[in-house]
């Protein structure tokens, strides 16, 4: 477990509330992510995990609460500042979200060419694209189109696209959902190796217990929009609370 003393969280969520009409999805949710940490947020479908992560990156507006990313309160910054933060926070979508009208190369070049502030004007993006693809073991797929890729390959390419911006934080929205057990395991190990290589911090939204076991430094159980329990995988696995036990059975 990452020691928290003297560490300032790089992401901090306090009292997050979000409702869709009369449906209260998040009710005072709070979270801290520390540097180099892999934090797994686990919960049943519809418990508000994906809504929380979308609020975090500014894809969803929240009703009240504060979200601070790298000392910046996201609800008090302008679009330009938010875009700058977004270059430091990678997001891996559940369905990969590859741009299907672009080849793998174009998918990876797309964010790179638009961030001249961070990278300067890059004349030749090929070395960076190949490096990102090598990290996920798919350097030979550079000229393929998304419809020519399997589900697991799509997930890896999406991860490469996230990595190419060299983010400090990566948010994973159910990274193993919809994949077979072998491919899931490959993706989990890939996430772990990336975290070790680039020293990124991660929030992983999942209900895959194997994923949590391998990758989590710390876990939060999100039930009915509130932090129900928090601790290491071992601590939560040893709990006798029936609601917590249900996840580990």
């Amino acid at each position, binding site marked *: 477990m990452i020691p928290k003393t003297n560490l300032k969280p790089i992401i901090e969520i306090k009292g997050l509330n979000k409702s869709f009409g009369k449906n209260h999805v998040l009710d005072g949710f709070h979270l801290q992510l520390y540097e180099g940490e892999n934090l797994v947020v686990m919960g049943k479908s519809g418990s508000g995990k994906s809504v929380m992560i979308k609020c975090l990156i500014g894809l969803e507006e929240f009703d009240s609460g504060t979200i601070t990313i790298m000392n910046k309160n996201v609800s008090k910054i302008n679009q330009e500042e938010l875009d700058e933060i977004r270059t430091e926070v990678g997001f891996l979508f559940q369905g990969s*979200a590859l741009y299907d009208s672009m080849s793998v190369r174009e998918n990876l070049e797309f*964010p790179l060419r638009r961030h001249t502030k961070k990278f300067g004007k890059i004349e030749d993006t090929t070395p960076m694209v190949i490096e990102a693809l090598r990290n996920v073991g798919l350097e030979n797929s550079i000229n393929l189109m998304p419809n020519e890729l399997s589900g697991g390959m799509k997930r890896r390419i999406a991860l490469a696209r996230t990595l190419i911006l060299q983010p400090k934080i990566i948010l994973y929205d159910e990274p193993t959902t919809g994949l077979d057990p072998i491919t899931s395991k490959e993706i989990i190990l890939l996430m772990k190796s990336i975290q070790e290589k680039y020293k990124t911090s991660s929030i992983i939204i999942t209900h895959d217990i194997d994923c949590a076991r391998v990758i989590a430094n710390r876990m939060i159980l999100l039930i009915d929009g509130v932090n129900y329990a928090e601790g290491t995988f071992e601590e939560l696995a040893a709990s006798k609370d029936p609601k917590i036990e249900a996840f580990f059975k």
Partner: protein
Amino acid sequence: MINFKLPELVKPFFIEIGELAYFAGKFFKEVFKRPFEFKEFLRQCFYMGNRSLLLVGVTGFIIGLVFTLQSRPTLENFGAASWIPAMVSVSIIREIGPIITALICAGRIGSGIGAELGSMRVTEQIDAMEVSGTNPYKYLVVTRIMATTLMLPILVFFGDVIAIYGSFLVEYVKGDVSFVLYMNKVINILEFSDVIPSTIKSFFFGFAIGLVGCFKGYNCKKGTAGVGKAANAAVVYTSMLLFIIDFVAVFVTNIFYDL
């Protein structure tokens, strides 16, 4: 007691109009901002222009052909067959060419944009652009609206030329009129006041097709059913808007004629 529910019924309509106006306002705000997505703009121009060319050409040709075939017997009865080129020319250039081409493009291009952006929204591709710190509105919407606005007048011109050629073929077969004579009659009757309003109108038609297609697709509700609805609504709303623009354009043009 009469329960007056009209405001509730029309509320969504006015909300939609407001949202569309905001969406259009954002276009004018973003269009002059750097970076300019020239490559994507040219790609969209190619797709929209090149891929609609055959459809617009075939439709224009048939309209010219049918229009002349239908009106010829009546005009012959009045001994006015020699006025066919002039009549076809003015009707095609002023009204039939722009509105028919725009309606075809609303079906062909507007629904395409609605479906494409709708599926991008549903599969989180637009969200992916946003979280990577790029501006999806600028890349997807501005380029498409610019492309439709620019390509529609070109397609209208192309459709007009083909329609007039279709009309000539009927006259050539039935009236034994030479190509040079026919074209002389077509061009001589035309004035700037015929060509300029219809060209300006075509730019507005193109803008409306791009705007509504993008608006419906970009704001598509989640789910595959939403994509179908977005494509369908893009065509229906655009077609309605085209007739409104056409009416306003004719109204304004007539004011200038009166002056």
